[in-house]
């Protein structure tokens, strides 16, 4: 979350530091640090990733594919996609408008709003799920009213979507606020003086300036929406073929000792993560490039 723009800027500097005799560290220091970080990386990050695919394919391709085209698995895929498709656009609109409000306007309760945006990060996802159960569940505040009107939220798809929206709330807003604050309001003021209306300014000036940060936020939101376990687990009720998302499906299979199936479905999530990382890196690269291009050259 450090901001897509800041991440890629250290490279040249590090290379220069390394190539100069005056600033270079001794090989011992360099290799010790490298060895520590690489072995840590191999043990805790790379090995589990490989293990997922190895375990998934242990019983051969047939079992692997069977686990993936199992109707319950397919319905879990569908539900996961649905949760992502609903929560990403919702958070996109919310994130842009919240970041806009915070970065460009002064108003009462601004700091409160900033703090509130962080709430889904600071609170445990399980608590987030529980909140929804307490509000919308059968014994919750709105439970009787919902039952009367035959609306099901908890242990149903709406609850899962809402819990996903909640936990992915901050990603886009958090990414955009510093970016928009740094850019200031001058370009938008220039646009309004030139006769542009609000939508034109948003479309032609604001969005192009934040597009890489926005894309970065969308990718993170999407990854989290598809991978969320805790909050969704509480509100889902684990009804097979109905209220199971992919992560929940993995857990059920695993608890039923269907290891190959569990790992096969898990490998889907792992691949999603890898694709996310590739896109994220590409976005970061693009953002850093456009950031560099936009730097002032001395007049």
């Amino acid at each position: 979350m450090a901001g897509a723009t800041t991440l890629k800027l250290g490279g040249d500097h590090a290379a220069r530091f390394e190539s100069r005799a005056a600033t270079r560290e001794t090989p011992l220091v360099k290799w010790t640090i490298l060895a520590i970080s690489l072995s840590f990386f191999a043990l805790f990050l790379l090995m589990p990733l490989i293990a997922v695919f190895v375990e998934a394919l242990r019983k051969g391709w047939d079992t692997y594919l069977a686990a993936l085209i199992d109707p319950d698995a397919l319905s879990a895929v569908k539900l996961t996609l649905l949760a992502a498709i609903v929560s990403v656009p919702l958070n996109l609109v919310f994130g842009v408008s919240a970041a806009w409000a915070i970065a460009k306007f002064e108003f009462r309760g601004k700091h409160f709003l900033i703090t509130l945006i962080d709430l889904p990060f600071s609170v445990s996802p399980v608590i987030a799920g529980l909140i929804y159960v307490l509000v919308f569940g059968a014994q919750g505040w709105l439970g009787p009213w919902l039952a009367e009107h035959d609306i099901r939220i908890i242990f149903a798809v709406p609850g899962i979507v809402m819990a996903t929206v909640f936990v992915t709330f901050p990603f886009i807003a958090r990414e955009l606020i510093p970016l928009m604050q740094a850019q200031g309001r001058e370009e938008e003021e220039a646009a309004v003086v030139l006769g542009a209306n609000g939508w034109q300014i948003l479309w032609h000036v604001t969005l192009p300036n934040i597009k890489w940060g926005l894309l970065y936020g969308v990718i993170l939101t999407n990854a989290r929406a598809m991978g969320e376990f805790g909050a969704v687990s509480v509100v889902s009720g684990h009804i097979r073929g109905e209220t199971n998302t992919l992560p929940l499906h993995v857990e059920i299979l695993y608890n039923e000792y269907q290891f190959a199936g569990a790992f096969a479905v898990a490998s889907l999530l792992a691949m999603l993560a890898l694709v996310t990382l590739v896109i994220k890196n590409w976005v970061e690269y693009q953002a850093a490039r456009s950031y560099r291009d936009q730097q002032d050259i001395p007049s």
Partner: protein
Amino acid sequence: MSIQVRNIHKQFGNFTALDDISLDFPTGELVALLGPSGCGKTTLLRIIAGLEQADSGSVLLDGADASATHVRERQVGFVFQHYALFRHMTVYDNVAFGMRMKARGQRPSEAKIRDKVHELLNLVQLEWLADRFPSQLSGGQRQRIALARALAVEPRVLLLDEPFGALDAKVRKELRRWLRKLHDELHITSIFVTHDQEEALEVADRVVLMDHGHVEQIGTPEEVYRHPATPFVYSFLGAVNLFHGRVDGDDLRVGEDTLAHDRRDLDHGAEVVAFARPHELEIVVDPQSTAGIAARINRVLSFGVTARIELDGVNGSTGQHFEVELTREQVKELALADGQLVRLLPSRLKVFEQPGAQA
């Protein structure tokens, strides 16, 4: 188009940015709003543009009250200190922006837009940069593009907020001359904000001097420089030597020294401040002389056409610094040396009564 502001008042928290400002900007003039930072000049400009809302008072464009008119309908051109070019658009798209944003009925065809953009780029002499991005331009080029962009919507007035503030000295000087030339060609009513007195005096038809949210003086560059109305204006427009004194008949008592003055209207004993420009002070080396202010030479700087002599006050004006401008020949003739005790005799002295400090 003429611009008038009437009784504008603007407050930021406890800070009064503008206090009851009323000004007329006649059609076709290039007016400078000049003052130190925080004097309210930029706020006033932004209120005229509509980017800021006055707490009270009104802005009249062409005689009609524009206070309720939205910024985008005011038809003003605004040039920002830091250019505010759209960084993701080429120079061409930047200049075309205003025309492309017009409502469908009034929007010119792309061919018309192309002609207009090229005409404007020609005007600012940067036609060859049409396909570049703002980041590929120098500061001076960016500001000229910003000006072309502002002119593209055929504004009725042009407002420039410290247009050359972010540029280095040489480019600034060039652009100043260029802006003056451009204004002489276009005759569009223009207001530009600056804290640089040289810039204001050199470029503007008229100068409005502001300080602490008040207008101190309005006049042609000649008028305000020759006949400053207040101590602030005097000290803001160029280097000055300042003397605090008390009226004593035909003399001013400054510490233990005296200066002659020509203000017959001042009461005996009135507290005054007196100003003289560096070139209006004469150095008397005769040790017997008792006229003028005693001072000790600190440094003689004799590069350039004229020599500058820095002095420290002695007798009563201790701790004060003076500056005298002489020709190099005069310096040679007087044989001035560092540490020498001399007397300063103003050839011209501007005396202001200090309000509220009367004995």
